[in-house]
């Protein structure tokens, strides 16, 4: 499940990104807490395609369509709360809290 990334020597490795699983039309976990600089990866294990899209007029991030087995990663350098939803199934929602 989600593993918050600790900053070590200033190198933030996307291979060790905190993981959000897309399954059964939901994001697991729906709320993810990470520290600034961490990478977050969303992995779709659902039959249905999905997407990850920041909820907000500024749309800070947006993935392409993720088919089963595909993933999208983003680094969060700013502190704050970042709500997001699936662009294809908008009722699916989650948030990343960066401290």
């Amino acid at each position, binding site marked *: 499940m989600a593993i918050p990334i600790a900053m070590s020597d200033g190198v933030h490795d996307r291979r060790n990104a905190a993981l959000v699983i897309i399954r059964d039309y939901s994001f697991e976990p729906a709320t993810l807490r990470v520290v600034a600089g961490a990478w977050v990866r969303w992995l779709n294990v659902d039959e249905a395609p999905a997407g990850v899209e920041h909820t907000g007029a500024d749309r800070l991030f*947006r993935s392409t369509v993720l088919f089963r087995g595909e993933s999208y990663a983003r680094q969060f350098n700013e502190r704050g709360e970042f709500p997001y939803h699936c*662009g294809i199934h*908008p*009722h*699916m929602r989650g948030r990343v809290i960066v401290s």
Partner: protein
Amino acid sequence: MTEQPTRRRALECMAWAGTGLIWTVTGGVPRSALIGSAEAATGFTFAQMSDSHIGFAREPNMDVPGTLAEGLAAVKVMAAKPAFVLHTGDVTHLSKPAEFDTAEKLFGTIGLDTHYVPGEHDVLDEAGTKPFIARFQKRHTQGGDGGAFYSFDAEGVHFIGLNNVVDLKSGGMGNLGAAQLTWLERDLAGRSASTPIVVFAHIPLWTVYEKWGWGTEDGAQALSLLKRFGSVTVLNGHIHQVMQKVEGNVAFHSARSTAFPQPAPGAAPSPGPMKVEAARLRSMLGVASVTLVPGQGPLAIIDTPLGA
């Protein structure tokens, strides 16, 4: 007695393929009829189609182009020939050019104009609404830059196509945004209150079920601009099922999909394609037709089961 509108409206919603029905309300009196029967209404008629989801190919429907073609064939043979088709969004499933190609080709077979608004599945491309506008709205003067909203007039009725799928809000609620609301206010300014108005948009403008994002966050602002009109019909898609509501002079109607049904609000853990037996699928898909008949009757929209 409230002021009578200048036009009387009959609204027919029909399930198609197999035992198709037409729901008709004329002058406040609801009745049902079989598709193609002598009871079908006459007058200015247009069809509503929605949620074609071309590109979807999973249970319960592996042949979405096929069911869309069946829906189009049903429109083609309606007794009251529609003047055109309104498509209330999610023409495609993943906004892919090949999906747009297939949809365009299929809609081209009925020989009727189709006026589209986008669903959230139609704007997944990085370019946002641009591919959709270029493909399906290029003949309409856009209400705003890249906005995918516009209006047009037909037979004395003012049609307004809105886009509430680009800036989704928390939980997936639709949103029109300030620029579109300003445009809407300008578009309506100076129009007589007796002008029949038909608004069409993808996500319901009224809140059907907030938990699933089945509503439009600033929909009430749009509806407040429409309050002074005597006859307002709001047509939506997105929820893949027929729902109707009347509030004052505003009649809300959501249409079935031609691709797959979704559960009733709260009837499942989440919305999404509802798996149904093949034999039941077609009874849960459909198209709607709307007929406006000159007259003086009050407006009402009520569903009545066949034979009731």
